[in-house]
């Protein structure tokens, strides 16, 4: 009873701390063992003094009374006398902890303060303690681990129509605390640009802008959103976001070799298709974690939807895997897969618990290995399968039969051809033989007919001295051109026949070997060579469920198929009640719409991450998602129809003073386009974007100057360019496309001089400027005046009409440069126009969205 009361109190404190970090309470609360001292001891001491079976010096520091009892050198502390307390003395002298890492002075001061106050505890300590560090009530009380409850929407204190939906109610409530308000709505042209880039990563067309600006119906904006959500480009944009979290690449990342993953693209296509189809997000996650467990074996004659399920498990194959060339070992791959899974789905860095109990978050080492046990049978480092051994053929029985029939027929043709060839060679030989005097012929014939090994010395001599008679298939043409040509033509026919075999596709799958269930054991200090203790049960993190309710992923599938561990865990994650998964997912979607997360460390919600700016809103969103059938498209619409989203991005000094980082959303944030969107927008402006979707990636190669790029004749969307870990596309990495080590929770948006050099001097931009210039000339009609050219360039690049002033600026530039180029360039006007277009492409208006 007492515990429950306490927990409730702590939750409130946690939440309150989130919004008012600066405002410290006037009177400091008492320092207690549970709240203040144990976290320090956990970070620096408990690894040895409590976490081990045998504490060194007999000193166990897990409880106040254990610490008081102390070890062989005496009591750990003397209440009210920090100076005489061994704990403080040893920390201050630097004797403890051993090694490099020492307790910082400010934290020792906390312990001194606690001892001086008589070493108080919050509540009675338990009579007995099971081995290990366990999880304390204080640790459990951290906001992130609280069950998901749907908070009440703040009452409508705002009579104006600014609160369009509950999102606005939560956001405005916080703004009002600082006497702030939303900005007015952005104008329509701005809003459609914002929404179009946001949902498709591409610019709107002029027609689309005009239609929306002139649409007087009440639901004009909603119609725009519906159109964008139905666009096939939507999945390419939002799929790219998810591919970051998954760490998708088309290569293994094994050192210099960086072996290409020829089949990884099927996972990329799966993601894009799933999002375009608005596959419910719970299902989307289940398929990626356990799609293989949803397809009954044997995996032959797979239906397209079954191939999709298998391709979905590419999520667990995205991490670097250097085992093909031996650059890294299987254990490293397992570590990386768990990192991808935990940062993308659990918002927790479980990796720390690989070697010891997590020092800041309540994730015991045992939890790490129990979570690992969910994946152990599929990854199975003990009987590792390299990437090439994890492929499933997409051949159907019909394909196989066809292939066999083709081969049989081709073989038959080959046999016939060989016979014909042998005969032709023999005929040529006979004919050549006739040129010799008759008496010599028999001996010669016998010599050439004898197998090499059985020739007598004399025969060998005969053969060597009469090379003319050495007719072979390769030299046949010198004796009989016609028959050689015929044979060649027939050989080509056979090759054509063989090419009729249906191409064999493969899908890279994460799956178990039926019947094989490897044990998972805890590794001492994370060292795979030192497994210890009993085999562990696959389970979710302890702290993700209320005390005693921990989820164990017990077998679900038929044992001759798969253990079903991943399926069980995935279904548990997506019940709509998982506190970690729900918040992490809602936060990730929010982040992509607004440029920052409600928790702005989207892969780390624990103690070392940041606190949520709007905890209630986050919980409301996390509960709203399942209510809407896990429809991501509906969720987009919810967020994008809010005033929070629709307001303008104008800054004002008052807001900047109160909320410099715009954590309260008093304006929409001006944002630079992501790398892919910059490249795609340039191709779109140049009128060259190839909208072909799906399939093997466009190969990238190092150009003459050493920067990796795709060939200019394949101007497809950036999401379809090959992702080589060691050879990133230079243009994309300049604009912060992530290096995947192993995945990326959140991209940076930097402003660097190399970006400027790429925009000023880079080949890609220069080429697109040339294409855009040609397009401008075509659209402006031949012989157009500089003013007309400038106006057209502005419209095509910026999707708006230029002001009179801008027309003047552009026209003056074109006229001046055309005159200057006249003597040098073949087409002086085109050269001038190309320069103008390049500056438009390189300008801030092109790179940023309001």
């Amino acid at each position: 009873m007492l515990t429950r009361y306490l927990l409730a109190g702590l939750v409130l404190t946690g939440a309150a701390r989130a919004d008012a970090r600066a405002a410290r309470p006037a009177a400091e609360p008492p320092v207690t063992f549970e709240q203040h001292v144990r976290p320090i001891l956990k970070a620096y001491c408990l690894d040895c003094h409590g976490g081990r079976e045998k504490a060194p010096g007999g000193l166990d520091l897990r409880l106040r009374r254990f610490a008081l009892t102390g070890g062989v050198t005496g009591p750990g502390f003397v209440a009210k006398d920090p100076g005489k307390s061994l704990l403080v003395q040893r920390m201050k002298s630097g004797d403890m902890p051993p090694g490099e890492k020492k307790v910082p002075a400010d934290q020792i001061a906390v312990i001194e303060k606690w001892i001086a106050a008589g070493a108080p505890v919050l509540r009675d300590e338990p009579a007995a303690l099971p081995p290990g560090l366990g999880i304390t009530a204080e640790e459990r009380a951290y906001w992130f681990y609280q069950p998901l409850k749907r908070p009440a929407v703040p009452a409508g204190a705002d009579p104006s129509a600014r609160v369009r939906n509950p999102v606005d109610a939560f956001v405005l409530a916080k703004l009002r605390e600082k006497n702030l308000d939303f900005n007015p709505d952005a104008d329509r042209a701005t809003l459609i640009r914002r929404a179009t880039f946001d949902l498709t990563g591409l610019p709107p067309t002029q027609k689309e802008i005009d239609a929306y600006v002139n649409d007087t119906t009440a639901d004009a904006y909603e119609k725009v959103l519906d159109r964008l959500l139905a666009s096939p480009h939507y999945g390419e944009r939002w799929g790219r976001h998810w591919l970051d979290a998954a760490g998708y690449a088309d290569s293994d990342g094994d050192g210099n070799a960086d072996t290409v993953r020829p089949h990884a693209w099927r996972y990329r296509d799966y993601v894009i298709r799933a999002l375009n189809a608005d596959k419910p997000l719970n299902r989307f996650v289940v398929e990626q974690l356990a799609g293989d467990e949803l397809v009954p074996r044997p995996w032959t004659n797979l239906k397209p939807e079954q191939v999709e399920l298998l391709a979905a498990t590419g999520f667990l194959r995205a991490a670097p895997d250097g085992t093909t060339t031996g650059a890294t070992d299987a254990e490293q791959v397992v570590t990386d897969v768990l990192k991808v899974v935990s940062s993308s789905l659990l918002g927790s860095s479980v990796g720390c618990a690989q070697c010891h109990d997590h020092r800041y978050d309540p994730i015991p080492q045992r939890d790490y290995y129990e979570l690992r046990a969910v994946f152990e049978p599929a990854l199975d480092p003990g009987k590792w399968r390299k990437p090439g051994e994890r492929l499933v053929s997409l051949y159907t029985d019909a394909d196989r039969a066809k292939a066999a029939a083709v081969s049989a027929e081709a073989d038959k043709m080959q046999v016939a051809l060989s016979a014909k060839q042998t005969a032709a060679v023999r005929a040529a030989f006979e004919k050549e033989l006739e040129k010799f005097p008759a008496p010599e012929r028999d001996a010669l014939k016998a010599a050439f007919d004898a197998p090499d090994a059985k020739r007598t010395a004399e025969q060998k001599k005969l053969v060597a001295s009469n090379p003319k008679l050495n007719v072979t298939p390769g030299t046949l043409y010198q004796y009989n051109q016609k028959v050689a040509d015929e044979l060649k033509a027939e050989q080509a026919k056979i090759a054509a026949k063989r090419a009729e075999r249906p191409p064999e596709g493969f899908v890279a799958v994460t799956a178990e070997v039926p019947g094989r269930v490897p044990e998972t054991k805890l590794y001492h200090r994370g060292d795979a060579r030192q497994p210890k203790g009993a085999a562990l049960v696959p389970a979710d993190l302890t702290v993700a469920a209320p005390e005693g309710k921990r989820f164990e992923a017990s077998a679900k599938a038929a044992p001759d198929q798969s253990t079903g561990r991943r399926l069980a865990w995935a279904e548990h994650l997506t019940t709509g009640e998982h506190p970690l998964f729900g918040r992490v997912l809602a936060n990730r979607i929010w982040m992509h719409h607004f440029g920052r997360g409600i928790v702005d460390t989207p892969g780390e919600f624990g103690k070392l991450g940041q606190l949520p700016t709007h905890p209630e809103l986050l919980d409301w969103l996390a509960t709203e998602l399942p209510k809407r059938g896990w429809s991501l498209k509906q969720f987009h619409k919810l967020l994008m129809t809010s005033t929070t989203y629709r307001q303008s991005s104008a800054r004002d000094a008052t807001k900047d003073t109160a909320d410099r980082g715009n954590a309260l959303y008093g304006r929409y944030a001006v944002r630079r386009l992501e790398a892919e969107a910059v490249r795609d927008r340039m191709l779109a402006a140049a009128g060259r974007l190839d909208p072909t979707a799906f399939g093997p990636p466009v190969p990238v190669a190092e150009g003459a100057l050493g920067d990796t790029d795709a060939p200019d004749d394949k101007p497809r969307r950036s999401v379809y360019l090959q992702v080589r870990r060691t050879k990133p596309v230079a243009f994309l990495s300049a604009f912060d496309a992530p290096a995947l080590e192993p995945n990326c929770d959140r991209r940076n948006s930097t402003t660097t001089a190399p970006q400027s050099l790429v925009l000023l001097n880079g080949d890609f931009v220069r080429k697109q400027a040339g294409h855009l210039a040609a397009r401008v000339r075509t659209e402006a009609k031949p012989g157009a005046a500089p003013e007309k050219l400038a106006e057209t360039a502005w419209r095509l690049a910026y999707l708006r009409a230029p002001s009179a002033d801008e027309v003047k600026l552009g026209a003056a530039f074109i006229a001046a440069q055309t005159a200057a180029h006249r003597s040098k360039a073949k087409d002086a006007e085109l050269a001038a126009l190309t320069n103008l277009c390049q500056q438009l492409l390189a300008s801030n208006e092109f790179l940023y969205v309001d």
Partner: protein
Amino acid sequence: MSINPLATRRSFLAHTSAGVGFYALAHLLHRDGLLAADGPSKPGENLPASLAPRQPHFAPKAKAMISLFMHGGPSHVDLFDPKPELTKNSGKEYAGNVQYSFVNRASKKLFGSPWKFAKHGKCGTEISELLPHTAGVVDDIAVIRSMHTGANGHEVSIRYFHGGIAGITGRPTMGSWIAYGLGSEAQNLPAYMVLSDPAGPPVDAAHNWNCGFLPPLYQGTVLRPKEPRILNLDPPADVAPDVQRQNLDLLAELNRRHLAGRPGEADLEARIASYELAAAMQTAAKDALDVTREPERVRAMYGLDRPETREYGTRCLIARRLVERGVRFVQIFLANQPWDNHTTIKDGLPAICKRTDQPAAALVKDLKQRGLLDSTLVHWGGEIGRLPVCEGELNAQAGRDHNGQGFTCWLAGGGIKPGITYGETDEVGHKAAVNVVTPNDFQATVLHLLGLDHTKLVYHHNGRAQRLTDGRPARVVTDVLA
């Protein structure tokens, strides 16, 4: 239409409130309004992602570092670590335990160095006849003969030296940590630069200059091994310099108008300034990389006049020109592990010595002549050394296998005690025996010389306070400090 670049730069400086470096433009305004702008305010927060110069933890001895990384494992017993016992017993069976990499060619036959050692300089440090130029600068260098990684593999030990943990990739390299801790002094050059070998990338390729979990602006900028050494530095072929100026002016005007409607957007202002700096860099970087501007005497000192030293000498000379201009950390890499002399060491070792000896020594001499050696730390060393026993038969084709148990590196300048040797291997040179120095000790010492405490240079990531030395035992080797 033209804008005043100085005015633009000044307004940019006002916004960053610090000196500005090349990559300082990458400085994102700290996005989180809840946090203090200039530093971490609670455990778990990091220094802002910026390359503005930062105060070191204490007064530094060195301001910059040049590392000549010698891939493959230079044979210390043939170069820096004379072993009379080994010479005396050459051809005899070794009684101790040997850790081999290539067991199929393992031999216990001791292989005395075919090369002679002699004392050099005032300090009398013994150096092999293979390194006559290095022998000429012994009074300026500290030879550490007790390096130890404990692992024989190349990758394992390379990663230990760069990232702080043996065998693990994906961690920030030492250069990234230094750039993170100190920022940049360079006005229009990257803080951390890598000079790669024309013959190809080193073992582990981009992992050697990866920023790992640190923000990408701390990643090493790779200078290409041939011209153009920096991509996109030159205007497109059809754009003459005066046209480029007109283009830049138009671009500045477009951006100025755009910004006028969005006052206070620092990102937009930073990008305007970045164009001006990019333009400035077109000249500055070209100048830094153009070794033809050096007098004949200097070029000859680095061996630019001879084919066998020209390539490596050029890179050493570029390295000096870079630190001269404020670049913080320069590392020179080799392709194809030329020091990995498994077979025919009698040919392979002299060849790589000829290629690198003179340029490396010239770097020390040149820095000293310019008064830059005091503030520039120079490092010469590989990831491992080689075994005292032979690999394969003890004949003309004999080589030596890997040895991570004991090997040599040298340091010079930047607060290093000159003209000393430190540490010892056992009597045949297999294992470090006295004053063992691990890569973590090496890192702690390097950071110390640069004014950084390796325990305090922290980046919070993945739920942990990360350090270059990763909380492992690491000591500053005070005996080699001046």
